[in-house]
């Protein structure tokens, strides 16, 4: 059976190659099923080997199987060979198991994507690389998997490449990882230099027998640690992981939570004899970096609003726990937590993917609320994941976290206190996430603050427009009044002329004129004057009315402005009560109406089935390592042969253990209670916790980007201009100098080089002819 170990990585590889070559023809959804089938088969093969290994004696559970020699050069020779032992097999089991579930989930999640088959090709390629990483029987093959998963991670983060943000995130992940890989490569060189081999069996057996210098072991361990913090996103190389959330959510679940990011812990566990030989400050450093990162990332997770960002920082934090375990010599606890974390964090990520899927791609938790009514399976399974990560017994996370905390106590109470504080924060931010997403008021149809702001703006604009209209009208009326006045003037002049004519007629007694006609003219003129006066009067009335209206409108605008400034829903977060939009209802942007028409929905079975299975695993996974008796510590027995007796033995009394466990449970409950008080009961204002500095991730990322974009790029530019100005400038300077000097001796023709080149050409041909003749070839 164990001869077939090569099948485990090979199946996903074949799947990947097939999909890369013929993916378009295979199409959706068949390429998804094909990819899933390869990983399921690979899981079955792993299971077969697991059973085979179980049937063996404990000391014969280490099998190597070599396919061919990969790089042979001088003393250096490395095979493509596999090492099967309890450690690598444990990794394989959950990589293929969780991997298969996530493949299945992706069939639903990636439905309708233009590059459906390419996605599965990459996912399969990733699974292959990850399996090579853990199965490789030497450091170089592990490095192959190590870089391979990095490349796949790059390809998958920037999968939706048309958005600049995703492309940048992919690049950032790869380059940050490469910084860590520098350490890994140096470690490989050092290992070969020290041991003359980089095969695990030889290196580890030699190291375990204590034959290497402490200084050498220290150097190798530190270099491997640098590699590990890159891949496993620990301080300060964690910066890429939150950005990596730009990838499709199944990718975040598989690569950036369950498998790839745990590689660093796997590597350090694998080389535990070297860590044991290293100076004692090395494990201490690992523990402190781990617990420091755990606390640091947990504080950031508290203030994130993007559902995936919370989980990303949570992952960084949980990985920190695993490093804490490795640093305190609790390798079993590290692997234990890795396994339980793989279950519950994959569950949480896939659950968040299901939520995002149901909410039209919106990732802001402030817009969710009350979703458990719409997504019963997603919410139920998510709640299981929450209980597991929050450390509520008997869910799996409790057991593994508790074991790590016990070992931390064993090492130093300060480490334990840090770990406990992280646990409290974890319970808090995860409860916050659950409450915001699944409980409380359904906020998706609420107008969001910026939308309310826009609506007020629209209303103010409308009122301003009314005022402007009125002003126009007033102007118009004023013009009309002018006109009417001049008309009145004209009418009066006419009247006085007519009256004058009548007056002149009487004394003259001129029979030529018609007195009746004159009288009629006077009457007409009188009428006209009357009409003009009336019109003027009317106009003046209307002007007054308009001016009054304008005053009113002005007042109303002031009122609206005041109201918009005092409307709390503009500045308030959506988390408070539903905003009162009655005054601006008709001004709200269309998005709000569209959202009202949208109905959140549960995801298809391909997505919910993995959730249910993972929820089951996240519940019971604690069973593999229960602290109550020696026989219940199954994982410890199973891993024992790979740990060379380097697993630290606890010097903590049973009573203390119980107290620690109870304290941890209480800590978790406190975190949960505070979050419920804040977000569900609203007794505490959330702004106390959601500090801007935390939301900004302590501004570390920003400062690093500023440095890269500022002094960093300036330095590069300086070197580049040094090249063109100084180095190339010197070359051209010499050329000019020669040209200038030689001009005084003889004119250099433009065709100089051409002639020269041609002469060489002729010479060559001549030599060739000679050659042909001499060697009797022609």
């Amino acid at each position: 059976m164990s001869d077939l170990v090569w099948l485990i990585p090979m199946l996903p590889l074949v799947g990947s190659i097939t999909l890369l070559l013929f993916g378009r023809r295979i199409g959706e959804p068949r390429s998804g099923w094909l990819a899933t089938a390869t990983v399921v088969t690979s899981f079955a093969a792993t299971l077969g080997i697991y059973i085979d290994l179980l049937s063996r004696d404990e000391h014969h559970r280490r099998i190597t199987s070599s396919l061919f020699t990969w790089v042979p050069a001088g003393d250096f020779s490395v095979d493509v060979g596999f090492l099967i032992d309890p450690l690598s097999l444990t990794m394989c089991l959950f990589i293929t198991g969780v991997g298969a579930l996530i493949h299945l989930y992706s069939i639903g999640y990636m439905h309708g994507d233009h590059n459906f088959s390419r996605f599965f090709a990459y996912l399969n390629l990733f699974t292959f690389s990850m399996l090579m990483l853990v199965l490789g029987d030497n450091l170089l093959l592990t490095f192959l998997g190590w870089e391979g998963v990095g490349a796949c991670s790059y390809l998958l983060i920037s999968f939706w490449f048309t958005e600049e943000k995703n492309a940048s995130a992919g690049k950032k992940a790869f380059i940050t990882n490469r910084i860590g890989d520098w350490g890994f490569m140096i470690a490989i060189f050092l290992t070969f230099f020290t041991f003359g081999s980089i095969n695990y069996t030889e290196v580890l057996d030699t190291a375990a027998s204590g034959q290497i210098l402490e200084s050498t072991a220290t150097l190798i361990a530190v270099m491997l640690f640098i590699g590990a913090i890159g891949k496993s996103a620990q301080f300060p190389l964690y910066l890429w992981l939150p950005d990596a959330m730009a990838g499709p959510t199944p990718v975040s679940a598989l690569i950036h939570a369950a498998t790839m990011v745990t590689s660093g812990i796997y590597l350090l566990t694998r080389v535990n004899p070297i860590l044991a030989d290293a100076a004692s400050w090395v494990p201490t450093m690992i523990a402190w970096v781990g617990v420091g990162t755990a606390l640091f990332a947990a504080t950031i997770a508290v203030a994130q609003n993007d559902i995936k960002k919370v989980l990303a920082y949570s992952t960084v934090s949980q990985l920190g726990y695993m490093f804490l375990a490795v640093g305190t010599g609790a390798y079993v606890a590290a692997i234990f937590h890795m396994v339980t974390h793989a279950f519950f964090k994959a569950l949480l990520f896939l659950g968040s993917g299901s939520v995002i899927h149901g909410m039209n791609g919106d990732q802001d938790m402030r817009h969710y609320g009350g979703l458990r009514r719409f997504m019963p399976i997603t919410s139920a399974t998510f709640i299981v994941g929450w209980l597991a990560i929050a450390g509520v017994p008997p869910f799996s996370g409790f057991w593994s976290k508790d074991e790590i905390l016990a070992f931390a106590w064993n090492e130093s109470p300060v480490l334990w206190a840090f770990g406990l504080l992280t646990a409290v924060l974890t319970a808090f931010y995860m409860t916050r996430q659950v409450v915001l997403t699944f409980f409380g008021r359904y906020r998706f149809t609420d107008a969001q603050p910026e939308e309310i702001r826009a609506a007020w703006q629209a209303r103010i604009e409308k009122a301003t427009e009314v005022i402007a209209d009125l002003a126009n009208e007033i102007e118009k009326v004023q013009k009309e009044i002018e006109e009417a006045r001049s008309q009145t003037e004209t009418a009066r002049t006419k009247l006085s002329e007519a009256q004058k004519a009548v007056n002149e007629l009487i004394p003259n007694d001129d029979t030529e004129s018609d007195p009746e006609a004159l009288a009629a003219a006077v009457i007409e003129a009188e009428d006209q004057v009357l009409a003009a006066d009336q019109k003027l009067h009317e106009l003046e009335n209307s002007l007054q009315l308009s001016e009054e209206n304008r005053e009113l409108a002005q007042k109303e605008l002031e009122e609206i402005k005041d109201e918009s400034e005092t409307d709390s829903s503009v500045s308030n977060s959506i988390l408070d009560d539903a905003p009162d939009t009655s005054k601006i209802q008709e001004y709200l942007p269309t998005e709000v109406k569209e959202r009202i028409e949208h109905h959140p929905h549960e995801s298809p079975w391909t997505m919910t089935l993995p959730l249910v299975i993972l929820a089951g695993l996240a519940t019971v996974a604690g069973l593999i390592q229960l602290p109550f008796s020696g026989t219940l510590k199954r994982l410890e027995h199973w891993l024992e042969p790979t740990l060379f007796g380097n697993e630290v033995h606890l010097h903590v009394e049973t009573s203390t253990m119980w107290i620690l466990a109870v304290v941890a449970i209480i800590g978790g409950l406190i975190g949960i209670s505070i979050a419920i008080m804040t977000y569900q009961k609203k007794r505490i204002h959330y702004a106390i916790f959601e500090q801007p500095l935390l939301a900004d991730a302590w501004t570390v990322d920003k400062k690093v980007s500023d440095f890269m974009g500022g002094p960093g790029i300036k330095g590069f530019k300086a070197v580049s201009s040094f090249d063109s100005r100084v180095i190339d400038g010197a070359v051209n300077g010499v050329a000019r100098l020669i040209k200038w000097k030689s001009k005084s001796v003889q004119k250099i023709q433009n065709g100089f080089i051409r002639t020269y080149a041609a002469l060489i050409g002729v010479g060559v041909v001549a030599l060739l002819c000679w050659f042909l003749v001499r060697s009797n070839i022609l």
Partner: protein
Amino acid sequence: MSTALLASSTSSSFPVLPSLIIIPLIGALLVAVTSRQRPELLKLIAVITSVTTGAISIWLLSAFDSTPGSAEFQFGSQQQWLSDLGISWTFGIDGISLFLVVLTGVLFPLALLATNPEHSNRAWYGWLLVLEAGVMGVFVSLDLVMFFLCFEAVLVPMYFLIGRWGHDNRTYAATKFFLYTMAGSALMLVGILALAFLHAEATGGSITFDLVEIAEAQSLATTTARWVFLSFALGFAVKVPIFPLHTWLPDAHTEAPTAGSVILAGVLLKLGTYGFLRFGLYLFPEASHYFAPVFLTLGVIGILYGAVVATMQKDLKRLVAYSSVAHLGFIVLGTFALNTEGITGGLLQMINHGISTSALFLLVGMIYERTHTRQIQELGGLQRSAPLMAGIFTLVMLSSIGLPGLNGFVGEFLILLGVFNAHRWWAVVATIGVVLAALYLLWAYQRVFHGPTKEDKEAIRDLSLKEKLVLGPLVALIIFMGVYPRPVIERMEPAVDALIEHIETHVDEFHEPITQKGSSIGESNSSDHGAHE
């Protein structure tokens, strides 16, 4: 001439190595005399002759005797030429030159097939074939004068290829290329003559330019040998090019037509690195060892410097050109590690760089054909309309970055491993170059292929069948050499071992740096072991 070195190998009397030079030359002659009425024949002749040459080179691969210890030159042939002057037509290849011959044989037909000249077809094909003959001549010659003639003769066709078919600034670039490399190797001729005369004087024999004879005798005084070595090294350093003698390269690469860039990067740069191995280390083991720290340092500077300058390039082709400066830095580094891992890695890297960078230049050429620009900022979002091209670009890029499983990694890793064993700190610094390589290539890829499509650019078409056929073999080699480099390494190793043995024999107090192995293990006390518990 130690004929024993040559006699053993081939059973056939067919002068197979000279044919590698003659066939392209015959092709060039045929191209020159082809009737004006039949222009379509030109490309056909060129392709047939270069494919034939390529086929012979591949046949060499299978006929090559790679049993361990078979370090002799194979397929040897020798013709007296100017016997009074000690100049002869001496040919032979070993594991060091074998794959460079094959690389040349493979790349020329691909470059010929991939591109068509914009004008003057006759001259184009003629010069390309002459160039192939010259390059082959460099790699198979075992006579110093022959070597030098071919080494210089290569400049002529390259000069015309850049100067006549290049881009806007071609005349400047061609002139610079020609004068720079010409000046670099001028001293080498003096060095060759001095070496031959001093050797004759020291041994009391007649004058000879036979490489093997001079190298095996090691008759020069130490100081003299160092001076002569420097005259050789200058010529090679320009050709490689080694920092700070590299500024002709970006100009020449950028201005050359696609086929020119492919040949320049794929093959011509290797003339320098090959020269260091064959005519530097072999002829002057002591001097090479003496000056090794200088070249190691320049190699490391080249790696970091090339990467940094590449990052800031605005022209995609120029960026690839500067990446060559970095890659060639690795090769120099491996060569002067003076151990099996380093030199084998360097040799592998010569082949890998030839494959990957040629593919990159072909791809850049294809992008240029479609968009008429090489400016990175004018490109964007190409992956949307040309997914296959983007996919192949990604693969080649990852190979150039040195991703394990692809060809670039094996060479780079062996180089760094070798250097680490010999000169730890150089390797520690040089490994930073691995990080920087990811930086400049990924950033360039993002700007060219990712992001939204530029508004004023229309969708480009994806790879044509012809382009797939040209890139196909390179992609296959990238994967094969990454997964199973063993057959290649095995054929190289006897020659590399012999070279190192040669150095060990002739340099006092020099031993191939070996791993600590037993030395530190066992010295340690187990007092700190298990300090945890």
